[in-house]
């Protein structure tokens, strides 16, 4: 999001390089994410999209370069970073309600017994995502879209500066996808929370996206959607002829051979 005057980036990568199992996922990555910016990370499976989030979460170390959140080196358990993981359903018997999941986001890392009282933070976060009515419902009894909203409430528990989302739209139908995207879009506009959104499918987030980071076979392109989602840019990234068709608010990437987006 372009704001008047220079603001301090909440997330910075400097010459970041990640090598996993002898394979270079990306290298020389420079990225500055300003408050309130919506960054969409695209790329085929195994291109290192989720690993990028793991680096920011402090769960994976860069092979070279540096990564910092609000000016400080990334570390595990940073309260300024919220995380919505890849969707994996819950069993019906999982003894956790909506409010409990959010509560775990508040104090789940602290030693000791669960607290008795009802936390106003939990109620507030559930309200923010329109999930008040899910407070007393077990996770296993929620639909996929409801679970994702509660997960976002959990990720907001610490009032983070950066929200990392790993394919949060997976297995949701278009209507619920739109709701989740709208929620994130509003959050970053109202609170200036930067969003880093990993996805296979750009269309649901195209309207919200400020920056696209396209990862591919150790290379990457970074820019606004208009700069990146162009035939010549993606053709050179993929090393094969790729055609980008944009029609109103939709975009399609067509290739002569299967390139795997």
């Amino acid at each position, binding site marked *: 999001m372009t704001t008047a005057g220079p603001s301090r980036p909440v997330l910075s990568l400097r010459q970041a390089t990640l090598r996993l199992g002898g394979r270079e996922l990306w290298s020389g990555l420079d990225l500055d994410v300003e408050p309130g910016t919506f960054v969409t990370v695209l790329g085929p499976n195994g291109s290192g999209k989720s690993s990028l989030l793991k680096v920011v979460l402090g769960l994976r170390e860069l092979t070279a370069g540096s990564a910092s959140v609000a000016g400080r080196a990334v570390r595990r358990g940073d309260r300024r970073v919220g995380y919505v993981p890849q969707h994996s359903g819950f069993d019906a018997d999982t*003894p956790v309600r909506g409010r409990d999941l959010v509560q*775990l986001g508040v104090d789940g890392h602290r030693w000791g017994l669960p607290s008795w009282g009802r936390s106003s933070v939990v109620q507030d976060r559930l309200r923010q995502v329109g999930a008040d*009515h899910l407070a007393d419902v077990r996770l296993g009894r929620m639909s996929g879209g409801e679970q994702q909203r509660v997960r976002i409430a959990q990720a907001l528990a610490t009032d983070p500066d950066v929200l990392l989302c790993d394919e949060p739209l997976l297995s949701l139908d278009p209507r619920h996808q739109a709701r989740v995207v709208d929620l994130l879009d509003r959050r970053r506009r109202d609170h200036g929370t930067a969003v880093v959104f990993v996805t296979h499918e750009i269309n649901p987030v195209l309207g919200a996206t400020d920056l696209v980071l396209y990862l591919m076979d150790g290379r990457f392109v970074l820019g606004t959607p208009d700069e990146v989602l162009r035939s010549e840019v993606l053709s050179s990234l993929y090393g094969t002829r790729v055609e980008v068709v944009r029609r109103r608010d939709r975009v399609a990437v067509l290739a002569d051979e299967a390139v795997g987006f």
Partner: protein
Amino acid sequence: MDLAFSDFVDFSNYDRLVPLVQNSLYAGALLGLLGGLVGVFVIARDLPFAVHGVSEMSFAGAAAALLLGGSVVAGSFAGSVVAAALIAALGARARERNSVIGVLMPFGLGLGILFLALHEGRSANKFGLLTGQIVAVDSARLNLMIVTTLAVVAVLAVIWRPLMFASVDPEVAAARGVPVGLLHWVFMILLGCTVAVAVQAVGALLVLALLCTPTAAAIRLTTSPVLLPLLSALFALTAMLGGTFLALGTAIPISPYVTTLSFLIYLVARVVGRPDRRREVAPSGGGAVGIGAA
């Protein structure tokens, strides 16, 4: 002991009997408490099958100790802690470990039966390790149970919250700084100790009646993370103590009473339980519910 019980098939001598089995009652109470609390994580971490595997290795360990002339209790502890560590090494995901547990389990049971067959001791021992022998709790064994229970409950009280986080939501827990891998190991060792103690009482085949059924019943009745362990412990305690009291009046061993009580509690909980306002909503129809808000 068996002979003494067949003399008391009616409940008229209770006041004389109860002091004789005082140790057993204390042991039952400890086990109920322990089983009910540990069971919460057995369910949350999807470990019932692992519990069964650990208890049969515990049986093998105890049988080996019996054969070699060592302490049955020590053998049972060694067997279950080794099994728990093996299962811990397989990882936290149920799918990855279940087949290996399925492979280990009959091997452990087979070994145990072999050791018992080679051992020329009293047959009561053979039967006891598989199906329970709580009436034979001596002071030394009771002390061990007290120490184990206190230790396990104390550790659980410290790690409860992050362990629950790591159990139901491992990715986010790791991201928030919870030592997920360490907690996985710590809990498996706690589980090993718990199973070793439980095997002494209800026997290897019936450990799940203490470590799974009470929590499964409690889950049908409450959604509160605070009430769940309390209710689960209460149910396990009821089954253990009730089973001990009932066993006093007859010649039947304690374990069928414990398992039956435990099962009855579960049945009742299933029938009356409505822990979630959404019970009526079929899983397939869940998607359309409550979306209109905000």
